[in-house]
């Protein structure tokens, strides 16, 4: 071949920080290796889990000879959209009953966030989004590439390993009126630190008084407390005051549908007419991106959500996952206490959801990877879902060594 590529000058892009952890883990040949990187649920045996109710739903779909593989509408599967809105906003939500909500099926949380951000970049008047510091690594890229300017507001307090509530109120209070604010609906990623109900109420009042537009990222509904309604409390609080908001939902974790890319973007509007116009504009964002969303995962979700028995079965399996994670938190905390590891480790049981922000620094993390073959993101975030009773002792040893030998 004699012709040089027009892309010859392209350099290799840096690895995605989170997915890169799994890549490194896979390369490691140590029998003791432990992957606490990406937030994917694992059983006590360290295996990925396909929910029983999901298998049932999938079998039903396969056995149904009348099913075809035609294109979904641009906005996705209608049943799925309605059921998703009910799931996050509550079946009795006035916003739904008044037809003020437009819901479009998207590719999991990432896709929902991107479509929402593109819509805002085109039609909203304040093109700045405030994101909590820290937040999921992909948020900045998603919003930036969609054309929004990204700023941070104080969120995590390393001293308490809890919420910097004063800082949060100050920063949001100083934000220009109308700015967009990204809120993690529950189980904040990466810190696991959530506002209390009272704090949420204060945040809501502040935001509404300044006309700040809430954009919820709900990736863990059901995983935080084990209860789907409780985990949607923050979102419902904002909707209940009659105001507007956006909400991105993901079924990756709570239905274990990671690879199927199932999610939804909802925009709660003031009136049904506005919601309808907004929906038509969302279609213009989606069509040139991928035309229409994938059918398989959404069909599984709709099958489960619309059948009362299957829905109940799902809540039971979901609660079991949440309970296992909560028990891992307790076990790790107890183990570190028993080991006498220096420091206050109570944040492990105070933080919520899949992740613990350990407070370990990058040097300590690198040490744990090198000496103990434990993989986590360099910010010290560990996925509790990757732990088991069997591996807690190994992690305890590693943390103990890191804290006592590395600063």
């Amino acid at each position, binding site marked *: *071949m004699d012709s*040089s*590529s*027009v*892309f010859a000058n*392209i350099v*290799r*892009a840096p690895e995605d920080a989170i997915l890169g952890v799994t890549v490194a883990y896979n390369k490691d040949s140590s029998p003791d290796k432990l992957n606490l990187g990406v937030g994917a649920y694992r059983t006590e045996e360290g295996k*990925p889990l*396909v929910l029983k109710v*999901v298998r049932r739903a*999938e*079998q039903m779909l*396969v056995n149904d000879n009348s*099913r*075809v*593989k*035609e*294109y*979904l*509408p*641009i906005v996705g599967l209608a049943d799925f959209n309605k059921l998703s809105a009910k799931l996050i906003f509550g079946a009795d939500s006035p916003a739904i009953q008044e037809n003020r909500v437009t819901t479009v099926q*998207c*590719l999991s949380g990432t896709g929902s966030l*991107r479509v929402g951000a593109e819509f805002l970049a085109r*039609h*909203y*008047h304040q093109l700045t989004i405030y994101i909590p510091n820290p937040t999921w690594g*992909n948020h900045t*890229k998603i919003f930036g*590439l969609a054309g929004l300017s990204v700023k941070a507001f104080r969120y995590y307090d390393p001293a308490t390993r809890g919420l910097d509530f004063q800082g949060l109120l100050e920063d949001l209070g100083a934000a220009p009126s109308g700015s967009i604010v990204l809120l993690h609906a529950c189980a904040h990623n990466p810190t696991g630190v959530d506002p209390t*109900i009272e704090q949420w109420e204060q945040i809501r009042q502040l935001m509404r*008084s300044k*006309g700040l*537009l809430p954009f919820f990222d709900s990736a863990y509904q059901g995983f935080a407390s084990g209860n789907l309604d409780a985990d949607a*409390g923050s979102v419902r609080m904002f909707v*209940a*005051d*009659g*105001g*507007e908001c956006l909400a991105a939902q993901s079924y990756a974790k709570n239905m*274990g549908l*990671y*690879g*199927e*890319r199932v999610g939804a973007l909802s925009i709660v509007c*003031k009136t049904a007419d506005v919601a309808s*116009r907004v929906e*038509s*504009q969302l279609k*213009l964002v989606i*069509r*040139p991106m*991928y*035309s229409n*969303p*994938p*059918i*398989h*995962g959404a069909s599984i979700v709709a099958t489960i959500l619309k059948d009362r028995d299957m829905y109940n079965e799902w809540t039971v399996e979901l609660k079991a996952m949440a309970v296992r994670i909560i028990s891992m938190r307790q076990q790790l905390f107890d183990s570190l206490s028993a080991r006498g590891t220096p420091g206050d480790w109570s944040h492990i049981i105070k933080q919520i959801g899949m992740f613990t922000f350990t407070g370990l620094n990058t040097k300590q993390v690198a040490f744990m990877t090198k000496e103990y073959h434990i993989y986590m993101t360099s910010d010290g975030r560990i996925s509790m879902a990757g732990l088991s009773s069997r591996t807690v002792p190994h992690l305890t040893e590693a943390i103990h060594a890191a804290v006592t030998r590395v600063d």
Partner: protein
Amino acid sequence: MWKCFSTRTSRCFSTSASNKALKWWDHVAPAPKDPITSVTEAFLADTSPTKINLGVGAYRDDEGKPVVLQCVKEAEAKIAGCDFLESVSSAVSSKLVEESVKLVYGKNSDIIKEGRFAGVQALSGTGACRLFAEFQRRFYPESQIYMTDPTWSNHHNIWRDALVPERTFHYYHPDSKGLDFSALLDDVKNAPDGSFFLLHPCAHNPTGVDPTEEQWREISYLFKVKNHFPFFDMAYQGFASGDLDRDARSIQIFVEDGNVIGCAQSFAKNMGLYGHRVGCLNVLCNDAKQAVAIKSQLQQIARAMYSSPPIHGILLVSGILSDPNMKALWVKEVKAMANRIQSLRTTLRKSLEQLSSPLNWEHITNQVGMFCFSGLTPEQVDLLLREFHIYMTLDGRMSMAGVTTGNVNYLANAIHEVTKFG
């Protein structure tokens, strides 16, 4: 608990919130409907028993029903209840890309052996085109894209949203209803050296007009001289001639001439996997090392858009393509679909000629693939809809896949009715 809050707070805040909110979205106009998907929407709403949908390019059997291919059913039974719901493992995604790229370059191609391509799975053809458009913009921010006149309507949207300006080049000749070859060559010659072009390697959408192999050679030669970058959107491989290898011939001619190319592939039509959004994007590179660099950039673009494509469709396609028996079955099924469309083209043309239509309908059988660019005017298209409940896009593009032995006479009569006075 939440209900208490709502009573208390909505009294306090609804006024100010509603005033601010009304201003926020007032200017959002209702968006224009998509010219293609809106046809299906209207068709679905129509209750007439004689309605025919010739809108979207989705295959139908002779009963007018959507088809799930036998090879797909077998593949699906195999993977039902599989453990693979995690995000796409690299083994599975590499398999899909490898097998897809074989369809483009030929299974024994050196390009594949030497790893001289950057390939990623994509959300069907649209997703593959969009990834490339974003990539093009990122690394050639001043570049434009040349598109055939006409082209698939969504192509304009894709490159526009990727912020790449477009230009058109001559392609379809409305008088001959064939290729405007000399004007095409002129446009290619006159474009600045090193321009990006979007080409349809086979079964051009919407016209069904493809260059001959000789014409492709001339175009390719000119591209090499001008150092243009050809990007192929291959959405209908197998539907033009019924033979998958033959339909990729144009791409191979360009590659043999030493052109460096990019290619979007879709499995929506030829595997009937429309709703699963399975496709592939590949960019030819100098060597395997550069391929790694380009692939990493493409993955980064995808990561901020949707992370990774849905695994179900990927498992189906890689399962079918990597099993020799299933692949052989697939090849047969593609040929059968192409044959059915070709035979209905012949029937439709004959019927119109038998009705003594004053117009020339040769283009129905000259054009290839799923579509016939009928030459009907928007007024005639509208009449067909209102009087006969026959649906197609306003440009007169008919999806021949929607024609059956059961409705072809009705269709011929209807077309004759609206065109018999010239």
